[in-house]
Structure formats: C-alpha cells, structure tokens
C-alpha cells in the first residue's frame, strides 16, 4: 500500500488515517480472543491480571484451572464434552446427508419453484434462534423427545442443513454436468455415478458445509437450553450457566480449548475452500 510519490499531503494524511482505522478494527476483532489465553493460566482466582502476571513472574502462572477442568470434583465438563461431540457428530452426518441430497436436487435445472424452496430450506438460518427454540421445543415435547439426545440431534440437523445446502449448491454451480452424462453413457448407474464421479468433485463443498454444521451444533446453546435435561448438558450450556452465575477461571480454560478447536477448524475450512476453488478453476 505504498503511496505514489506525487500524492498530495491531504490524501497522504487521509491514507494514514484510513490505515489507522483499519488497524483499530482488526485489533477490535481479534484482541478479545487473546485476553482469554493468559488469564486461563492465572494462578489466582480473580479474572484480572495480577501484579505478578504483569511482571511475568512464573509463580503467577499455573495450570490449576486446566487441572480443575479435567479432574475437578463434581465438574460437569467431561460429561458436557462427551455429549457435545456425540450430538455434533450425529447432527453433522444428518445435515450432510439431507443437505447434499437437497442441494443436488436444487442444482438441477429441472427443479420447479427453485427460489421458493431454497428460501424455505435456508430459513432456519435466518429465523431468530429463540423462535426456532420455542417451536422445536413444542414439537419435541409432543413427540416425547424433549431431554433426549435424539431430540437435540434432530434440532441441530434443522439448524445445520442450511449451511450444507448453501456450500454444496455453491460447489455445484461450477459443476460440469457433462461428466455425469459421460459416466451414464459409459454404462454407470446413477448411484455409481454419484459415488465415483459427482461426490469426489463436490467433496470440498460437502466437507466445508459439514464443518459449518458441526460448529453450529457444537456452539448452539439457545435451542439446547429449551430441550436439554440434566443428562444432555453440553459445553455451551455449561458455559452459559457458568457465565450467568460466576465467571470462574475454569471457564477460561475451557474457552482456550474451544479457541484452539476453532483455529483447527478454520485452517481446515480455508484449505478446503482453496482446494475447491482450484478444482473449479476459479483463480483469484
């Protein structure tokens, strides 16, 4: 962003002002995440930087909150983590299957009422979560699935499929349909064509949609708050309870783990996106 030498002073000033604003905004976006790290290693119980921490005294840091997270008495995190992973994995599988099928149908040029159906399928992403929560709660209570893992998985499939539909339709928009016709003309049945030709090509879109679905489920708290009983508590629900009652450093230890997890997911998603763009021949 070097300025040409003939730039007038006022534009020069404006340019530096603009850079300053951008720096501030990037700082505003990313800095809050980094407050969590050091405080989760705090040796004390308070959520402020102690004098020792400011002077980088090694005694002021400890792993006690991580120990508490894993071994602590009557700690809910083990059960919550297990539930969260089980629910998120099943919800992701469900979302991928339903969402990919629907995206295949929606991408067909023969699909009637495409816009309307697409809008309907995406709606769970747009409707405020609290309303989805109330509606899904009424349904699950009626069919007797409230406070069960199945109920929460179904609810998360509802919330997760829109992401799969969006990413897979986006991948399919650059899809060359003559390859499936070629497969068919060579004698392959539709199922084989899908597994051997279509799926490998749209796989990056499917996986990144699946990642979205996974994160949606793993991070979802509003609907779970309505549906969950004591046995179905998840990490977000525990964090919600903890944050409402008292901010404890253990929560920060959990939060640090979650940030690490999201970093891994982000890197995977980015790599997939680039691969998908390369495969579709989009050069940017």
């Amino acid at each position, binding site marked *: *962003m070097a300025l040409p030498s003939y730039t007038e002073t006022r*534009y020069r000033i404006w340019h530096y002002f*603009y850079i300053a604003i*951008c720096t501030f*905004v*990037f700082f505003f*976006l990313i800095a*809050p*995440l980094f*407050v*969590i790290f050091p405080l989760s290693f705090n040796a004390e119980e308070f959520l*402020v*930087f102690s004098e020792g921490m400011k002077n980088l005294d090694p005694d002021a840091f400890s792993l006690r909150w991580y120990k508490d997270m894993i071994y602590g008495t009557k700690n809910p995190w083990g059960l919550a983590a297990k539930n969260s992973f089980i629910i998120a994995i099943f919800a992701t599988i469900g979302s991928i299957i339903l969402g990919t*099928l*629907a995206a295949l*149908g*929606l991408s*067909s040029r*023969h*699909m*009637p009422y495409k*816009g309307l*159906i697409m*809008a309907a*399928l*995406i*709606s*769970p992403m*747009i*409707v*405020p*979560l*609290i*309303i*989805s929560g*109330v*509606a*899904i709660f*009424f*349904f699950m209570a009626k069919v007797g699935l409230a406070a069960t893992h199945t109920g929460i998985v179904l609810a998360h499939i*509802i919330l997760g499929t829109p992401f799969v539909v*969006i990413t897979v339709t986006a991948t399919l928009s650059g899809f060359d349909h003559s390859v499936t016709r070629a497969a068919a003309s060579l004698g392959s049945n539709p199922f084989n064509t899908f597994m051997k030709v279509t799926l490998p090509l749209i796989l990056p879109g499917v996986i*990144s949609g699946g990642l*979205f679905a996974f994160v949606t489920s*793993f*991070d979802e*708290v*509003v609907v779970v708050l309505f549906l969950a009983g004591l046995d179905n508590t998840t990490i*977000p629900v525990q*964090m*919600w309870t903890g*944050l*409402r009652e008292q*901010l404890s450093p253990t929560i920060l230890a959990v*939060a640090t783990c*979650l940030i690490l997890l*999201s*970093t891994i997911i*982000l890197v995977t998603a980015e790599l997939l996106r680039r691969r998908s763009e390369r495969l579709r021949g989009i050069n*940017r």
Partner: protein
Amino acid sequence: MSSETKQILTTDGIPLEVSLKKAERKNKIKAFLLVAPLLLFLIITYVFPIGEMFTRSVDDKMITNMLPKTFKEMETWDGKELPSEEVFAAFYKDFKVLVEKQEQGKLGQRLNKEKNGFNSITKKLLRQIKRNKIDENQSIKEQIMKIHKRWRNVEYWQAIKRTAPPYTIAKYLKGMDMYIDADGGITQVDEDRRIHRILWLRTLEIALLVTIFCFLMGYPIAHLLATLPMKYSNLLMICVLLPFWTSLLVRTASWMILLQQQGLVNDFFVLIGLVADNNRPEMMYNKVGTYVAMTQILLPFMVLPLYSVMKTISPSLMRAGKSLGGTPFVAFWKVYFPLTIPGIGAGCLLVFILAIGYYITPALVGGASGTLISNQIAYHMKTTLDWSFASAMGLMLLSGVLVIYWIYNKLVGVDNIKLG
C-alpha cells in the same frame, strides 16, 4: 397442410414433443425427490411447530370449554343489564361440574385476569356450594347475587361473556401494551406500564445501531482486504474468520472480562487519564456492553459479503475515474461506492436480521437496560410459563424478520449467500 402432418416422431412412433415433455417431467420429479426428504423433515419438525405456535398464541378455549352451558344461555343476553335467571342457573351448573373436577381455581384465576376481583368471589361461591347453602329449587340468581355484591355487578358478567370466543388476539395486544376493555374496544395500558413497547423500540434501536457500527467498521477493512495483495490479505482475513468460527460464548466471555470494572478497557482509560481510578465507569450490564459485544460478534457477517463484492471491482475503474479528472474522493464516491451497494445491502440486512433476534449476548452483558425482545420471550417460556404469550411475541418478531428476509431475497437472492 395442417401442422400435425409435419410432426416429428421418435423411433417409437411417439411425437417428439410428447416424448420430450415426458422426459422433462421425469427429470422434474427426480429433482424434486432429491429435495423431498429435507423438505418433509423441515415441514414436520419445523414449519408445523411454528404453525402450532400460532394456534397456541390465539387459543382461548379453556374457559369456552369450562362454561359451555353459560355461554349457550348468554347468546341471547344483550349484555347491558344483569343476565336472566337462566344464565345464572347455567353458570351454577357449569361451576358445579368444575367443583367436582376441582378445576374451579383455574377458572377463578383466568377470570381474574379478565377483571380483577373474580378470584375471591368464585372462592366465596365455592364455599357456599360446599356447605350446601344453595337451594336448587329457588331462584339461583337471587342466591348467587346475595353471596357478594360483585355478582350483582353487570361488569363481571360482561367480563365472563368476553371470554366466550375460543380464539383471542389478547396476547398480541398485550405484546403491544394494549388490551380489550369492558366495551370490547382496544385500549392502551397506562403509560407507566408500557414495558413491551419499550422493549420493541429498544430491540430496533440496538439492531439498527449495531448494523450501523458494523457497517462503519466493516467497510474500511473489507476495502483493505480486497485491495491488498493476496499474501497480506490472506493473513488479515484470519482476523475476520477466527472470531467467525469461535464459539459465541467464548467471545461473550472475553468481553465480560474486558468490560468489567477492573477490566483491561477500564485499566486503559485510567492509564490515559480519561477516568479516575476510583470512578471507573460501568461498561457491562447495560446498553454499552450490548453494543460493543454485539458489534464485534456480528462484524464478520458484514465484512464477508462486502469483501466478496469488492473483490470483483476492477481497480482500473478507480484509476479511470481519477484520470478523467476526479479527485480520489470524487472517484471513490461516484465510481467505487455505487458498485459496492449490493454488498452493503447484503451485509446490512444480514447483520440486522441476526441482531434483532439476538439472545445470548444481551442476556449475559446486557443487564436490565440492554436486554432485547428475545430475552422477554425466553423469560415467558422459562419463568412465567405463559407459553401462549411467548408464542405471540415470537410470531410478532418472526413476521418482522420474514419481511426483511423477503427483501433480502429480492435484493440479494438467498442462493447468493456466501459463507467464509
């Protein structure tokens, strides 16, 4: 020659047009069958339950089912003077059935909501019945009227009549701080009790301001990301994407740490001498906290659509604008800015839709003055258990969101939503 003789036939002898249509239909059905499982799943588990919220919100069958005989007799009552002996007798019969089922308490409570004072007079009536004080061979009207002076007051009978229809819009009116008065007209509640209207306005205000903040902060960085060379912009993009992928609760927690009275933001203000150490401002549990946290959390949803639009704008357009004599500002305003309007529309609508239904963050950092309509819905679902009122408020919010969604669909098209 007619056109029929010219028709092209397939090898099977079927007209090509017919054969083609058949194939098209087959393809249509095939495409639809692929969508069908998800569509069906959503209709059963999602669309119908939202419909059920509607029936719940207008449902008022409870009293209708409790006092069937009374309402039948009341059909001929003009509602101006005290009802006839038959109405009193029918009410007495209905009430006795309720006493046997021990449901008279529910009736009293529900009628009390319609008009204050019902609870105590139904209890008085119950006591008389329990002591067998009421002689069914004499005028029931006289005996009931003797129990309490309110039974002689026509307003109470009018209140009963108002509860007759099985459906009511009362919950929706309550959501707008209105109610149906004794004459059946719609009245506003007293000024100091209009809590819901304040909440609606505050929700709108917060959603609008958060959208504006997101736009003001998102536009410059989206521009920077779109104009920087790839290797720098990819790195900076992480600053946008990492918060986007991080748990909402984690981000809210970090704001709770930063904004607390002994937190880093206040430390910084003290350090630069903006505030005194012993007079640190409260930045959490009020609107300030909600604004700051929601802006940071929703900012990626503004940056990503803006970025994807700006990426497609050729830099030579700005150069052309400048070479034709425009100053950089003019070139920006007349050339660049209009081209980004689709991105602005998409980003602003998305952020607004998400902000208007926000629940978690306001509940944690908002305190009493920073909570939104969603928090009120959750409160009625979980604490007061007035599910029909929660449903009514939810549907009012939903109708607003759907209008914006419709506009969004017209302007941007849902198939153009970009993720990551």
